[in-house]
């Protein structure tokens, strides 16, 4: 259809597909750590895509997004680890073989619960915008983290700051992704298998986001972002549409959380700090608000860059006799990169293409 924008991935989708499929096979030659970086980048892409629905489409600045990530991660952590059985004898009795909830059951459950929490947290903030909304959502994000940190007594549900360990690996067709797969001509370590699962999930997310963006729901979100009063005057129920955006965004966060928990095998409140929320917002803004390729680029860069810089910062540290701490240097370099991008490309690295450039700017009011 002529009105629908063509899927703006790369100019050659075939080439892109080959690149994405071969990438981990190349990376794993240099060590599994590199594939891990790619895996984490993909998880962040999913998170950024979800937050993009809230911030990019509906224009609601959410600084507590990591809370939904945490909800998803803890659901899988609780339902696929021995922790609950240790705490509650009746759980151990009900599941004599151990609590190993299947991923395919947890995924919809986490999506539903995270979506519900998203709507729940979104509801009281409906009248707020901009900075005020950001502060309230920031508070909500912290509340969830504090809950996770302190729900180890009187009844030990989350195991507090110690976190939940020995979470099952994700099983696809009953094959645990943590186990090395020997295809004869090539060996695929666990991280590479996770890569392909994550890649599939990311592609699915992109498809869902793109279809939402080019639907009447997506247009309605963008209308609210552009001018809420005008959107109302067009008959849009802005309350429901905002809640829908919160819910949809949170769903993505929950799903990413599940995969994250299975991938890491361990979750603790530390992974869901305010810094994470800010990083995800930074990915969306840095890449290009509301523009899918930009958001993906931003997420890959900001998730991958710190890890790559690890290898650059090390030598620099040696050069200065250890006076420059690698961790600090890394943050410094990222901060510099972000300031640079915002100075020279204020609409993000890859913003939505500009229509109407041909018209004189003087013609606008």
């Amino acid at each position: 259809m002529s009105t629908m924008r063509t899927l703006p991935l790369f100019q050659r989708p075939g080439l892109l597909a080959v690149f994405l499929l071969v990438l981990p096979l190349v990376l794993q030659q240099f060590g599994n750590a590199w594939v891990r970086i790619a895996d984490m980048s993909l998880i962040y892409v999913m998170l950024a895509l979800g937050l993009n629905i809230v911030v990019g489409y509906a224009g609601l600045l959410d600084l507590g997004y990591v809370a939904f990530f945490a909800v998803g991660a803890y659901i899988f952590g609780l339902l696929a680890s021995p922790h609950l059985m240790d705490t509650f004898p009746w759980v151990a009795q009900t599941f004599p073989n151990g609590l190993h909830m299947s991923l395919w059951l947890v995924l919809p459950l986490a999506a539903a619960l995270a979506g519900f929490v998203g709507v729940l947290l979104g509801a009281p903030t409906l009248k707020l915008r901009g900075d005020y909304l950001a502060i309230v959502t920031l508070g909500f994000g912290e509340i969830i983290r504090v809950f996770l940190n302190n729900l180890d007594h009187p009844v030990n549900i989350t195991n507090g700051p110690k976190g939940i360990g020995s979470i099952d690996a994700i099983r696809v067709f009953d094959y645990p992704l943590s186990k090395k797969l020997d295809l004869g001509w090539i060996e695929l370590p666990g991280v590479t298998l996770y890569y392909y699962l994550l890649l599939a999930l990311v592609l699915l997310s992109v498809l869902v986001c793109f279809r939402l963006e080019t639907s009447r729901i997506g247009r309605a979100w963008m209308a609210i972002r552009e001018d809420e009063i005008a959107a109302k005057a067009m008959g849009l129920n802005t309350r429901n549409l905002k809640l829908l955006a919160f819910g949809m965004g949170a769903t993505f966060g929950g799903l990413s959380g599940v995969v994250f928990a299975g991938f890491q095998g361990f979750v603790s409140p530390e992974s869901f700090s305010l810094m994470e929320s800010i990083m995800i917002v930074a990915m969306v803004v840095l890449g290009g608000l509301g523009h899918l390729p930009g958001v993906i680029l931003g997420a890959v860069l900001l998730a991958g860059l710190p890890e790559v810089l690890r290898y650059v910062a090390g030598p620099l540290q040696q050069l200065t006799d250890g006076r420059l701490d690698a961790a600090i240097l890394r943050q410094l370099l990222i901060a510099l990169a972000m300031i640079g991008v915002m100075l020279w490309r204020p609409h993000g690295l890859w913003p939505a293409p500009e229509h109407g450039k041909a018209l004189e700017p003087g013609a606008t009011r």
Partner: protein
Amino acid sequence: MTDWVLDVSGISKRFGGLQALSEVDMQIARGEVYGLIGPNGAGKTTFFNVITGLYTPDSGRFLLAGQPYTPSAVHKVAQAGIARTFQNIRLFAEMSALENVMVGRHVRTRTGVLGAILRTPAFRAEEAAIAERARALLDYVGIAHLAEYKARTLSYGDQRRLEIARALATDPQLIALDEPAAGMNATEKVQLRALIDKIRQDQRTVLLIEHDVKLVMGLCDRVSVLDYGRCIARGTPAEVQRDARVIEAYLGTGAHA
């Protein structure tokens, strides 16, 4: 009996110590262009905001095309069938002209999230219909060639047209224009007048709030004049122009036409 599109009576609205509207009535027949004029601060915009649901009235009875409606929320009024434009243009600046009009179709279409994600045949059909209707409306107001341009890049006059197209997209019973000629030059006013004439010829009903008395007198079938929150005169433009109270409201006591 006349087919009243808008039939409101006894509307009062008080802001603290200020009686902004007292017992205002208005009846607009189908297919007419109805003008609402009055000096600054007469209550025109308050009246407008009350019937479109932005302000809650203290009292009043509201009928839209014979059906009672409660102006309790802006989006509900739009669903009931009053579409409006804004005195200071409010478009969706970063969306294309076409998308702006497509948003106007939202309220008359159904598909939800699931349909959008699965791209069901119903969704595709509806989406095609939305786009087709939006293009037709852009053509109707004369800016079809600007469909792909972002709204903020359009010229002032074209932005006004786009706003009207977007309002028409909601299939309104009544389209309410809040000072559409504000800030327009003479050429743009002539074009605007032609457009409103065209809308009337299509048997649509227009409520026009306007400062430009010349435009109102030339265009409207009937006019109401507000002053200090009261309706001081109503009738054809010629009748209203001769009304002593109107002359007094505009020119002060002792003035003679």
